[in-house]
């Protein structure tokens, strides 16, 4: 529908895999930051009903 690849990610992380969790979070944050802000689903403040 036009959401850039990389903006959405899925991971399977066990509660025992704390290091994997940290890695995934860092990785995802970096990818999303690189893509920049997503304005597609944003509604202007004055239009919020």
């Amino acid at each position, binding site marked *: 529908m036009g959401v850039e690849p990389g903006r959405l990610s899925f*991971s399977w992380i066990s509660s025992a895999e704390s290091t994997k969790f940290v890695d995934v979070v860092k990785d995802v944050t970096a990818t999303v930051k690189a893509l920049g802000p997503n304005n597609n689903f944003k509604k202007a403040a004055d239009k919020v009903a």
Partner: protein
Amino acid sequence: MLGYIDKIREISKRLLDEGRVDMVIGFRKGTMPMMNEPSFVKNPGEVSKLVWDSNCGINLANYLTDRKEKIGVIAKGCDSRNIVTHILENKIKRDKLVIIGVPCKGMIDRRRITAMFDAEVREVNEEGDTITVKGPGFEKKLKKSDLLQENCSTCIHRNPVLYDELAAPLVEEQKDIERYAEVRRIEAMSPQEKWQYFEDLIAPCIRCYACRNACPLCYCPTCFVDESRPQWVGKSQDETDIRTFHFLRAYHCAGRCTDCGACERACPVGIKVRQFTGKLNKDCLEMFGWEAGVLPDERPPLDTFKPGDPGDFIK
């Protein structure tokens, strides 16, 4: 398909006479050409109201939800698949239904016909594969196969999948049909192009919810768009809200949509609503080998887990 009428009336009359059903849901002539409307026949004397032609595109499974009486329902291929879906989702009990199967050769797209003429179309008759369109000062014969609804021209389930009676012999299914050409075209676009494509697609939407109301899958007592505590979606004409409505509605139909085309047919502004559900149908077929409403005893992919389910998207 006109020849089906007598048989449909005969079966309906018999079912009502014998008391096997409390009513028969079928079609009667609409007040406008090409707009047959659903009809609930409860009296054997009224079966002559029932008709059948190429304007019966409304999905009658929509009228079965949570019904308690015994019902005879007339079902094309797609209707029967929605009945199967209804049974799977516990919206109707199989033993309450007598399904009168109608092998279907496709429904005509009234928009294609009205777009061909400047003047108002006042009368549309069909005989075999010829459609005669009449209006003030014109009369034209057209070929039915050129006028089919898009979903009908690519349909591979013309025969009902589940039925108790048949109104006519089964018809030959279409083979070697490219069903997802349009979906593939959109898939090939870049994210920006896709976004723009859907923006343009839904631009005329007036949020009348006709697509939702015509859809047999949309039976929630309170739809997410009508809910106000909490309010999931804004109720305005803002494009964010329109977009959210269309995307979410499509996802609610994932793995359930039979591509009956009722949504697209109902849209008063002619939005190709099937562009949303088409992708989900294609994905279900490719990833899970699933087509909605074809197998009466198998759970749909979205409410079951199988070890072979694709999981490549999980990193």
